[in-house]
């Protein structure tokens, strides 16, 4: 019942509307940061808010296929929008880190190589580059079966995002573990327990 209602709404909702809604938090956070709404240390607050939202979007993106398979909810037409907006927020998160947080160019490169949580985060970002570059109809047509294969990079990319969060906190904290748990669960749902019959 619920699934039907969601599917009906989803069919009527144009994808541009989703792009618009998902784009709104970015200027909102920026406005908050400029006007004191993010507290007395707005740089870290903005950096973390963007990163966390990106991780949440990535998880929603990973949930699309399991929702369709196990709950009959079809959000497939929004998956590209979710993916592209995930990348956008990861990119903004990275920009805030580069330009507002670290600021010093030589230190940025040293951090990427020397600090494992940054190495992991950058690796996740790098894996997203071919994904966002091929998130268009032309690439899907052109790459054919290879497109599906290529887009399995989503799995390690999201996993690296979750690990990046876990690695950067001090002490034993629940939130990053919860995110990583959900990511692992969504990835585990994709493991096929029985091999698919092969067509000769």
């Amino acid at each position, binding site marked *: 019942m619920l699934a039907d209602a969601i599917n009906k709404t989803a069919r009527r909702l144009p994808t541009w509307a989703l792009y618009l809604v998902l784009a709104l938090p970015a200027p909102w956070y920026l406005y908050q940061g400029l006007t004191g709404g993010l507290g*007395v240390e707005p*740089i*870290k607050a903005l950096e973390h808010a963007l990163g966390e939202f990106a991780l949440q979007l990535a998880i929603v993106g990973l949930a699309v296929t399991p929702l369709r398979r196990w709950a009959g909810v079809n959000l497939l037409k929004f998956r590209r929008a979710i993916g592209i907006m995930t990348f956008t927020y990861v990119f903004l998160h990275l920009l805030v880190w580069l330009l*507002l947080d670290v600021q*010093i160019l030589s230190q940025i490169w040293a*951090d990427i190589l020397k600090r494992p949580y940054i190495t992991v985060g950058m690796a996740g970002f790098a894996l997203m580059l071919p994904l966002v570059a091929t998130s268009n109809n032309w690439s899907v047509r052109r790459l054919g079966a290879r497109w599906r294969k290529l887009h399995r990079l989503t799995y390690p990319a999201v996993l690296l995002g979750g690990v990046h969060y876990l690695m950067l906190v*001090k*002490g*034993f904290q629940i939130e990053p573990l919860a995110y990583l748990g959900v990511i692992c669960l969504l990835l585990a749902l994709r493991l096929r327990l029985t091999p698919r019959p092969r067509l000769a």
Partner: protein
Amino acid sequence: MANRWTNKLTRSDVTPEPIFMNRRRVLAGLGLGAGAAAGGATLLGGMPNAAQAQDALDPNPFEDITSYCNYYEFGTRKGDPAENAHMLTTQPWSIQIDGLVDKPGDYALEDILSQMTIEERIYRFRCVEAWSMVVPWNGFELADLLELAGVKPEAKYVAFETVLRPEEMPGTRYPVLDWPYVEGLRLDEAMHPLTMMATGIYGKTIPNQNGAPIRLVVPWKYGFKSIKSIVRITLTDSEPPTSWNKAAAREYGFYSNVNPTVDHPRWSQATERRIGGGLFARRQPTLMFNGYEEEVASLYEGMDLKANF
């Protein structure tokens, strides 16, 4: 003994908190900021890097100091302590002083305070997370409290413990750290005139989120050494365990002196960001021993500060 250490700046140099932000804006607007500060400091008697030091010792507003805190017993987000710490009962309060002391026992806070002279100390405060503030603390020297209890000659270290009341401290429901929070100092560090027990900020009673009713302040060490809401002080002859060292020995050493040349494994300690500079705040260089090198470097003469981080 109060007044063994004096600020290079006195309270008269501190503009009252509501107008201090405006003054800074006026100076910046006139393009006088650094120049005026340098001129003033030179007249005061040329300390090294005077302009920078003078600028750095403008205290952060009360709002900065009390809204942006690490006090994991009340939650791990910076705003959690300000939100949750009101639950902590700080009266009555006593500190158990034991171990290698002549007069062990429970010392009621009001009895301690009746024997102390409260003074103001404007200190730099550098968090291990590479942010910093300047805080006008009110309190007394730890040495005076230790003298009250009588330190036995065989004592070499001082161990501290934070109150642990799960019903008043929602963060302790999670094993973020091995509760209760514990810290420690070498005896000579503890007896140093810079080391203080703070009971106030800006002349007001110290807010709960900042470690009420009484906390340690060791300005040349990373902030986590300055343990909050102290209920026990133990004099020992061996190095006491410390909470962050137990949680991650590779990242947090017993000494944890502010040192721009020894990085945290996960981030650089060469620079820091002063809280309160907004979204476009520039990083500034971190000073050796947080700017207290002259006062404390002798404590570590001949020590390898990379090995004893």
